[in-house]
């Protein structure tokens, strides 16, 4: 049954492709700068951080704006996958109640759109990192598994968030707070080693900890990430994906009635 579903989703790959394309192109349609906003947006964010953290909130960390920026772009993808993902089935109500297609397409589309958007933002990340600290060609390939692991985790969480929100609309708002808390519990704005020693084991259970560290390792410290933590992150991502898959498959049967 699950294999059939996987095959079916594969057969609907054109739909995923078209929907991702539509979302990406449709996002800035009508605005003067159009698609250019995809790059302009992270650049402007970076500008704000640079001003705030080099003039007002000065940090001990060298080139803190880059330190933060490298972690922030992947985080924004994760946050959007979970928080925006919560409503990705709800938002397509008219399609879900009127047309058959494997429902998994909706979260996959949502996460993939965010993922492609992140990849485009990485053009800016590379530029900034390249000018600021330089790039290590030997370490860069490690970005690929890091991104794949993050995608797996994001997709798993999106499945869960989307399925639950259909039945329980408060989830959307609960997730708003939860995601904010998660941001502060992940080493995005601070280095992981400032967390008290005795809390470290719990802290490391957060799958975003190894993922963030891996991005930073490659782009900020210019060295390959620690492989054991990567594997731990992969394992956690897969647990969420498998759990999310089964939960979504079970709950999607009654989507059309609940909407």
């Amino acid at each position, binding site marked *: 049954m699950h294999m059939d579903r996987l095959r079916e989703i594969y*057969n*609907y*790959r*054109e*739909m995923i*492709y*078209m*929907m991702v394309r*539509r979302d990406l*192109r*449709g996002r800035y*349609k*009508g605005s003067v700068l159009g698609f250019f906003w995809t790059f302009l947006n992270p650049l402007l964010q970076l500008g704000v951080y640079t001003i705030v953290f080099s003039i007002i909130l000065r940090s001990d960390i060298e080139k803190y704006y880059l330190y933060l920026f490298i972690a922030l772009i992947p985080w924004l993808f994760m946050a959007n996958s979970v928080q925006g993902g919560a409503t990705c089935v709800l938002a397509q109500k*008219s*399609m*879900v*109640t*009127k*047309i*058959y*297609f494997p429902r998994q397409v909706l979260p996959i589309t949502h996460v993939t759109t965010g993922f492609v958007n992140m990849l485009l933002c990485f053009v800016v990340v590379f530029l900034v990192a390249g000018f600021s600290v330089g790039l290590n060609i030997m370490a860069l390939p490690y970005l690929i598994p890091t991104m794949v692991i993050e995608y797996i985790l994001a997709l798993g969480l999106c499945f869960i968030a989307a399925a639950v929100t259909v*039945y*329980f*609309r*408060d989830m959307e708002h609960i997730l708003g707070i939860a995601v904010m808390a998660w941001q502060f519990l992940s080493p995005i704005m601070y280095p992981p080693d400032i967390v008290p020693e005795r809390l470290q084991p719990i802290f490391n259970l957060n799958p975003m900890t190894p993922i963030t560290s891996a991005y930073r390792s490659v782009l900020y410290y210019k060295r390959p990430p620690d492989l054991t933590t990567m594997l731990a992150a992969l394992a956690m991502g897969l647990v969420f994906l498998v759990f999310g898959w089964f939960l979504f498959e079970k709950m999607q*049967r*009654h989507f*059309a*009635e*609940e909407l």
Partner: protein
Amino acid sequence: MENNIAISCRNLTKDFKVYFDKGSSLKEKILFRNRRRYEDRIVLDDVSFDVKKGEAIGIIGENGCGKSTLLKLLSRILYPDNGTVEIEGRVSALIELGAGFHPDMSGRENIYTNASIFGLKKEEIDDRLQAIIDFSELGDYIDNPVRTYSSGMYMRLAFAVAINVDADVLLVDEILAVGDAAFQAKCFNRLREIKAAGTTIVIVSHSLGQIEQICERSLWICDGKIRAEGSPREVHPAYLDFMNRRNEHEPAPEPPVEEEEQPKNRWGNGNVRISALRLFTDGGEEVVENVQLGTSLRVEMEYACKRPLKKPQLNISFYRTDGVLCYATGLMVEDELGTAMTGQGTVTMEIGRILLLPAQYSIDVSITGEDGFAYDDWHDARRFVMCCPQVEPGIVRLEHTWECTQAPDAKETNATEGDGEPCRKKNP
């Protein structure tokens, strides 16, 4: 599932929880637990049926009877609470048109998005692209953003995509009300082509006429159960009769017409009766049985009204007795009379040259109100046999002339008497 079965439904049951006051937020779930009362409404109750490959079947029933739910179960949008649906081959559902259209994108791009939602792959869409554009009649507008389209253009594009999906099983829900009359006719013809190509079709419609034209079988759903099943010509009159009676019992009961002994081929509430239907030939002679092909035919229908009717329409259909509908037409009697239809009268239909080919034919007449309900519906009111010395296959003779031309060929033409002149032969 047997080989020649396309859709097999067994013991389908579906019930919905109908909440009196539904809330799906936490506050509502906890605080108003008492208010979250609901009743289980059984929408479909143990429905079983099969549809053969290549068969077209119509599902009829009043609003809320469960026919749309049934279609949603077939299309897998809903899952049954009990029972199974098995469908062979690719299913396409014309339920929602224009899914995923983005107003800022061009018609062409939206074709790709929309078709991909129906599960088509890139190459499959490429193959159909031209057919879709042609069918939509959008021409050069296809590269303009969809937001600049009129609603008619929008629906034409949406329908063009949906109808070109090429499924093995096509599910259609009340969508033939798209665009202008010409486009509707085109859609309908396309549906016929699809059927001729061997696609299994399930149609949900309020338009019994459409179902009669395309379906071999009708399924009448009433209160979640199959009430009747059979050829549309048998099921529909019974259905209309049932609806008439129900309407009469409900809100404003019209004074009941005394029930007459009704023959089996006659339905309707009896507010008007066609008392006689007579056929006359050229010379004014009444037809006994035979009608010569090519002669004129006059159909006289006498009617008697029991009470004034609202916008009555008189319909007449010519069937070959093996069930092929040869021709049907209707008349708004009021417009013709210039006054309301009351009392008694006669409607005459003059057919200049009747060109139906030799066979036995039957005539159905009915008088319906503006909502389509029959006041009188008389099947097989009259039979006649067409005669003609010439034997030609088909349903109807198309009046024609022949013309042949041949280029003069040096040797051959000299040898024969032909001189290259076009020769004409007029059909008698």
